[in-house]
């Protein structure tokens, strides 16, 4: 098999961070998750090559959903846990073994919907975790139901007459708590993913990175942008990259644009440090 032999030869520089025997992955053509994972792994690779990070201390913790499948393929200690509970699981792992670098990756439904309370309290505690929320604006794995981030008016399988709800601005929510880092990237701007992840890896406390992503198969179909290139280009045209934007600029606005950038950078003591001070 041609594809298999390419993997066996270790053709890609990131193969050392992938469980190549599990490939090909389950993600649909045009899905942004591969770009997101690529950016995350490149940032990890840079930190490891700088001697700032040990591979054996990296733990990927995920819940359930398409984004959660990243723990299938990343060649680190990994946990594919329950829907919504990745932050809870990660909190225990980090507290029990502080030398671990625990990275939570999840979709918007997983992190901000069913797992929203854990997100709030981990950010409130400034828990020493990196949480990556990959936003595709929909529940994709279950077939296209409305998500807490779905824009108003959009068709989903559970809002057949248009989403009547206001979407949650997760950047604003997390920023209102005590995190050390809040940023928004987009798979349409891959270097941003790597750059923000790289920065987060060098910090302590609670670090939150939202990555806007493309789901042509489900979200794209709902909004009439089924073609992945068209969806990608449309999202790309909406993303406005800003240097140190204010939190008030984070409101997702499909007319004026979706602002990406580092909304909050702080150096407060993380939860572990506060705990040790007692």
């Amino acid at each position, binding site marked *: 098999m041609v594809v298999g032999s390419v993997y066996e030869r270790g053709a890609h520089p990131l193969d050392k961070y992938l*469980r190549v025997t*599990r490939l090909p992955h389950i993600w649909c053509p045009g899905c942004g998750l591969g770009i997101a994972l690529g950016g995350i792994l490149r940032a990890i690779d840079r930190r490891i090559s700088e001697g700032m990070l040990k591979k*054996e*201390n990296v*733990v990927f*913790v995920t819940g*359930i959903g398409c984004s959660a499948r990243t*723990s*299938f393929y990343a*060649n*680190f*200690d*990994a*946990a*594919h*846990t*329950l829907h919504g*509970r990745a932050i*809870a*699981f*990660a*909190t*225990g*792992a*980090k*507290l*029990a*073994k502080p*030398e*671990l670098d625990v990275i939570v990756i999840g979709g918007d439904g997983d992190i901000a919907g069913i797992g929203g*309370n*854990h997100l*709030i*309290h981990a950010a409130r505690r400034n828990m020493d975790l990196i949480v990556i929320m990959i936003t595709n604006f929909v529940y994709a794995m279950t077939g296209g139901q409305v998500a807490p981030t779905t824009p108003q008016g959009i068709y989903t399988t559970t809002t057949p007459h248009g989403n009547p709800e206001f979407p949650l601005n997760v950047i604003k929510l997390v920023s209102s708590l005590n995190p050390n880092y809040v940023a928004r990237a987009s798979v349409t701007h891959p270097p941003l993913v790597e750059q923000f992840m790289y920065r987060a890896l060098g910090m302590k406390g609670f670090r939150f990175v939202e990555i806007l992503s493309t789901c042509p198969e489900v979200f794209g179909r709902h909004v009439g942008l089924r073609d992945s290139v068209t969806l990608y280009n449309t999202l790309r045209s909406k993303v406005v990259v800003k240097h140190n934007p204010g939190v008030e600029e984070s409101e997702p606005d499909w007319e004026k644009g979706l602002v990406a950038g580092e909304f909050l950078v702080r150096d407060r003591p993380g939860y572990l440090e506060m*705990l040790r001070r007692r």
Partner: protein
Amino acid sequence: MRKAFISGNMAIAEGAIIAGMKFFAGYPITPASDIMEYLVERLNEVGGVVVQLEDEITSINAVIGASWAGAKSMTATSGPGFSLMVEALGLAVISETPLVVADIMRTGPSTGVPTKTSQSDVLQVRHGAHGDHIIPVLVPWSVQDAFELTVKAFNIAESLRTPVILLSDAVIAHLWESAVLKDPGEIEVVDRKKPMVPPSEYLPYKPDEDLIPPMASFGDGYNVIVESLVHDEHGYYRQDSDTYRRLITRLTSKIMSNVDKVFEVESYYVNDSKYVVVSYGSTARAALAAVRVLRSSGVKIGLLRLKTLWPLKPEALREPCRNADLVFVAENNTGKIVADVERFVKNAEVVSLPLLDLEVPTPDEIVEGVKEWL
């Protein structure tokens, strides 16, 4: 070894420390909160972490995470909190995560009577989590027992890679008794099995002959996978019946084939008895008193006090009842364990003595219940 005069909940905390627990996460709930309050001082002294989290869901998921980070881990709760934990218990089952949940039963359903006792959650701990599974459940009847069964709960959890439930109740929780707190060496303390092979040869869910896979922790360099989906020996998701059947059979068999490690029962006066009372937890204290009252008036009656509710060992129930005509099952609920006693004990008539008391049941209630059948 230390002699102490402590409560049942304090004994659970002390037992956990002796067993080597290094991580506790919990959420306040009557009548379990004082376990966390006690541990927050004591566990720090031995280098462990106690953390109060935002709810019971977080607590048990954090406990699973901590266990994978290598720490013996535990949470404590009561009915309403336990209800929130059952999904994660399933994760602990399928990912074979050692952990202990102390469930201090109180009156239900719903908020019930938070400060009062009950034994109505004995089937919840057996069947609460979805999917096929069996989780060992130990049930103490005294402060000393609470201490020793907590250590045993950790030993089972670590040796069989399973969640274990220590099922106490509001009476035992706040009963103060003389206790001998044994140190490691005076009481057996078991640690989980670690891999003996290099990471390149390690399969996280490949069992040894005893059906238990050695467990590497996060940070050990073994690239472990904690997997909530049905998985093969690599920890890779599989959707075929063979893999599913093999996994579920092993997860169940590893508990059932070790039933002698898990199951314990104490018997009092059963050898010559025409009548046997089966009971457990705080109700068994009243049952023993009732048995003594009845024997003093010439009734040949004995007591089987269950220390383990799940898994039950059929022959260990059947054998002591072989000469009995009547077997009474006294429990502070509408009659639950009685169904299994009926299933296993065929030669005698099995009678349910359902007691619905907010306080510890009295010996008189049991004496009267038995007398109706004499």
